[in-house]
């Protein structure tokens, strides 16, 4: 095994161990979207009249509509969670240990990214299984075809988390991330309501939603769950992921980035 792969394995195992040991984190990661699905969506079931828009071919209940958005929510929150743990690592000094490895820094960071994405995807599948128990079924092929969409969306949101973690000086600042990143990103997207519904109330809000990379991540997942491919959403998600990763690498570059300024 090459040193690069050894590093990848070590980092993934470390993240997985951390995840398994923090059982509360696992449960809370599932409880959040489940509350949205079973409580919020139930309340809105009749309130939101949904007309048919692709990839759907007939009328659907609100629960069915927000399911892909909630998958996106798991990826988003996990991306942020891993950025939180990066800040924690930095404060505790284990980050320094990691970055002193002879391997290129971009690879170490990418390993972190892959590790957090793997964990996120496991959670998404757990969530989809629980949703199926509650009677929200998808086409069988959709459960398999969604995997690449989850990987792309997970990497993009994880990269965003990495980029943000390079900006956050202290653990306490994480509340700011919640307020200024997670909430606007989640609510200004197609996760909870279709974009045409948004356009009915405000054109500006619709346009903001339309450029939000999270919207595209959700649409990529939505189409994949119904065995369809949305090239526009895929392009946007990959593009945004690339930009966020560049920002993260820049942020963690000791010669130029935020790390230096902080030091």
């Amino acid at each position, binding site marked *: 095994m090459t040193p690069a792969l050894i590093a990848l394995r070590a980092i993934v195992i470390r993240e997985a161990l951390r995840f398994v040991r923090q059982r509360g984190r696992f449960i809370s990661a599932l409880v959040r979207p489940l509350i949205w699905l079973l409580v919020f969506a139930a309340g809105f*079931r009749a309130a939101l009249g949904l007309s048919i828009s692709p990839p759907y*071919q*007939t*009328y*659907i209940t609100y629960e069915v509509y927000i399911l892909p958005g909630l998958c996106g929510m798991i990826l988003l929150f996990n991306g942020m969670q891993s950025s939180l743990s990066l800040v924690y690592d930095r404060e505790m000094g284990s980050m320094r240990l990691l970055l002193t490895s002879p391997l290129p820094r971009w690879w170490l960071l990418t390993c972190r990214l892959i590790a957090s994405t793997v964990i996120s995807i496991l959670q998404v599948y757990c969530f989809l299984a629980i949703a199926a128990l509650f009677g929200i079924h998808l086409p069988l092929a959709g459960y398999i075809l969604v995997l690449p969409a989850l990987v792309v969306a997970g990497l993009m949101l994880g990269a965003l988390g990495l980029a943000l973690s390079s900006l956050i000086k202290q653990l306490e600042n994480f509340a700011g991330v919640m307020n200024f990143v997670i909430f606007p990103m989640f609510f200004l997207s197609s996760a909870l309501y279709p974009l045409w519904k948004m356009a009915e109330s405000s054109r500006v809000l619709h346009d903001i939603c339309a450029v939000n990379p999270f919207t595209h991540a959700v649409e990529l997942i939505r189409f994949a769950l119904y065995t369809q491919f949305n090239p526009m959403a895929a392009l946007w998600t990959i593009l945004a992921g690339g930009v966020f990763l560049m920002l993260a690498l820049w942020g963690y570059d000791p010669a130029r980035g935020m790390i230096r300024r902080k030091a």
Partner: protein
Amino acid sequence: MKTSLILLNLLLATPVVAEEIWVTNEKDDTISVIDVATLEVTRTIPTGERPRGITFSHDFSRVYICASDSDAVQVMDPNTGEILNDLPSGEDPEQFVLHPDDRHLYIANEDDAVTTVVDVETRQVVAQINVGIEPEGMAVSPDGSTVIATSETTNMAHWINTETNEIFANTLVESRPRHAEFTHDGAALWVSSEIGGTISVFDTQTQAELADITFEVQGVHPDRVQPVGFEFTEDGKTVFVALGPSNHVAVVNAETYEVEDYILVGRRVWHMAFSADKSLLFTTNGVSGDVTVIDVARREAVKSIKVGRFPWGAALRP
């Protein structure tokens, strides 16, 4: 040689007509024809004013259409879409039923409180039977001996003897009965009541009520649960019931009279028709102007197809 044989076969073969569902569009004065294989509208045919009830002759060479506001039942050639002739239907025909003899149409005249019997060959009115106010639902027993007319305002099912063309029994049902059907064996009659929100089941022999089926759709106000059209599956064990503005189709066990499932469809679902193999069910959704296709085995809506404005009736052309 082989190629020429194939060519000869192709030339001799009668043109195969794709299996179709014909849907009357009440506000557009048209019929939308849906190809069952592709689930797409293949053509739109103009009709008289406000087409509602629709049924094919037994050999599918003619299609009868209740053009309510034209006060006529139109006879159309389904191959050309050409109106062959009008039948004297009486005023405001809304629904009708074709007798198993393939010759007599029993037509509900909503405004006149009569049921008109028309001979489709001679194009003559054979009889007019006085029934309750605003007759609508029409059904004929499989043996052809009894025809049912339901009157929306009198809230009754009228049992008509087809030999004498006289009413021999009346049964009270819930408010505003809209649709009636006999079970395949003719042993029971089912009548849906729109405002009452129920389906009443009667014994054909005694006209005694066997059951009263009620519906409850999660998250929908009971006032909006209005059963209208319904259809039996081929084995007669299951009934699909259109529940009007609740936007759901109920799946009822015809043996236990229990509602087993609700399927979300378009807005104000009215009537329905099965595909030839009974694997698909097509529901007309008036307000949303589309037809929802239900996978009968999976009890799931698979697609909604845009048709004209206010689709009303549906009929299969195999």
